[in-house]
Every structure is written in structure tokens, then in C-alpha cells.
């Protein structure tokens, strides 16, 4: 029996909130990046912080990683890496989310 028939026969309804949770679970993990001796989440907060900490004289900055350890990093190097990961992962997330929305 194929899956569509199975769902129809079981009279199952699509669990939208659960699907949303599952996407968050899946893509949150993909946003994690081990770089420059720390573990980072390529999220809006970290990227914003690295962006505003620009300093013409010294491009190094100390930032707390996800394990709550302070790590001295090359700001622009880390920022570039996190932005790359953010863009590719969020594009994937958005596409899967759009598919999900169409199931409403």
C-alpha cells in the first residue's frame, strides 16, 4: 500500500505544528559550525554581533561559543563562514517550509 492510500484509509490529518517542530529540529543542527576552536550557531544573533563588532585596528574579538566558553576569533573570517552556512541552510529550510505551508 502506498503512503497516500495509507494516510487516506487511516483518516490521518497532517500535524502542522509537529512538522514545524521537526523542521526546526533538523535545521537548527545544520546551523552548528565548529570553527576557530569554538562551536557556533550561524544564527541571526551571532551574525549581527560579529557584524557590529567591526574595528579598524584589530579584527579579533572575544565571543562566547555555544558551550559558553570565551574564544578569541578572527571576526571577519568567522563572520564569512557563518553567513555562508546561514544562507545555504536557511534557503533549504525556507524551501521545505514552503512545501509544508502548501499542505495547510
Amino acid at each position, binding site marked *: 500500500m502506498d*503512503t497516500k492510500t*495509507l*494516510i487516506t484509509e*487511516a*483518516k*490521518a*490529518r*497532517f*500535524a502542522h*505544528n*509537529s*512538522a514545524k*517542530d*521537526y523542521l526546526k*529540529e*533538523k535545521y*537548527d*543542527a*545544520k546551523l*552548528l559550525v*565548529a570553527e576557530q576552536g569554538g*562551536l557556533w550557531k550561524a544564527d541571526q544573533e551571532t551574525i549581527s554581533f560579529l557584524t557590529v563588532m567591526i574595528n579598524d585596528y584589530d579584527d579579533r574579538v572575544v565571543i562566547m561559543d*555555544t*558551550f*559558553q566558553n570565551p574564544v578569541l576569533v578572527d571576526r571577519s573570517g568567522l563572520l564569512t563562514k557563518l553567513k555562508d552556512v546561514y544562507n545555504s541552510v536557511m534557503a533549504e529550510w525556507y524551501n521545505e517550509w514552503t512545501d509544508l505551508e502548501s499542505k495547510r
Partner: protein
Amino acid sequence: MTRGVILFAFNSHKYNYYEMAKHAASRAKHFLNLPVTLVTDEDSMPAGEYEHWDKVVKINPDKNNVRDWGQWINKGRYLAYDLSPYEETILIDADYVINSDKLLKTFDIYDDFCCHDSVRFFMRQGNFPEPLSSNSYDDILWATVITFRKTQRAKQIFECLEMIQKNYEHYEQIHGFLNAGFRNDYALTLALRIVNGHTDNPRDFIPWNLMHVGTNTTIYPNNEGEFNTEYTIIFDNWQKLKIKKEYNVIKDMDFHLINKDLYARIIDNG
């Protein structure tokens, strides 16, 4: 630096763990591109099956763990440290279904040992921490996935696992575990905390949840073929003494099957 996966599989009267491990091994090779070592016994592995494995180690397992549903040959996991031929190893349960390369990330994030400290169930809201015992504030750690490097500290953790297994009744009496019979999750929880001086080191924990396919939940592969990664999950949601069936579709996501009966459906698809 050599890396690989190690699996333990000992058939019980009820479940064919060897077949589960063989399925897990082919997926580990496909998605992680790592060699796989099997630890098993003469009774579990059929003849002429060596081609499926990079290395096979046969041992005489301790079969002295009987649960209400039957025999569960799950002891001896501490041997993974000595039996693994790799410098860095991912030890997974045979009923862990790999659908992505996510586990490779554990090599980047750990010091020398990591496992899951948090779990979620598909189709159910929130986390479901499981306490070690009725009189403990500690939640259990999960032995389903362990990544380790051969270091002195990792060795100590596995030696401690051995000590706890060999003196399990003593630890069971002290802690009053919620489930009877030997569980690797309990032994790991105690071993890691003992080695860490009864503190938690966040770097020992995999920074995402272990996803379970739990009770009242069935799972169906959406495509035929050995390396399908898309599944439909149907959940019997009990509300006011009625079942409301709900479903969701997942793809490219690893999971652990609590209900081993579901594994046959996944293997048959391959």
C-alpha cells in the same frame, strides 16, 4: 587519523539484531563514508556474510539480562574502546537509522567523548527527559550514539562502564533505577558523571536532540530502495478516549526506533 563506525549485534529470540546492524552498516557506509566494524557472536551472524563488514569481531556475550519481554543481549558495550580498530569511532545502536551525514559533525565538536543528553519524540511536543531514578534529579544520558577518540579519559569512561556493568546490582540498589534489568543508558550516565567528578561537561553532549520514533507511532518509508531518506510517520494521538490519527513526513533525518518491530518494515523496503 582513522575513523569508523562500530556496531554490536546479538540476536535474541524476539529480534534479529544482526539484520538491523547490517542495514545500519550499509547506511553508515553510504551516508558517512566510513568503514564499519561488527561485534557479534557465532549464533547471530549467518555464514558467508563477511563481505558486508570491514571487520568482524566475534565474542561470547553475557546473555544474563532478561526483561519482561524476553532476553536482551546488550551487555559488553564497554568493549567498544578496545575492539574498535579506529582512532576515532562512532558507536551506534543497531536500531539507529542513519539518513544523513549529520553524525560526522560529532567529530568536529567533541573533545574525546560525546553522547546525547536530550531526546525528542516525533509527533510529540516538548522534550521528554527520563530521570535516572525516582529519587534523582539527574536525567539519563543516551548510549544510542557515542563518538569517542582513543584518549586516556575516553578509556577511563569505558573502564568505568565495565565496572558499573560488573557491579550493576550494587548501583541499582543505590540509585533505584526506574527500569529493571541492565541498561547501557543508565551505566553510561553513571560512568560519565563519575569520570567527570560528578559534574557535567557540556562538550560531552551532542548539541542536538536524539530523535525517537516512540510508542503509538508507526513509520513507513516513502520510497523503495536501500537508501530511502523520506518517511511518513503516523501517530495515534489519544484524546478523550478516542484516537486521532496524525501524520507528518520527514526526510534526511536520523532517528532511533524504540519499537523494534518497526525495523522489519524499514529493512524490507531495502
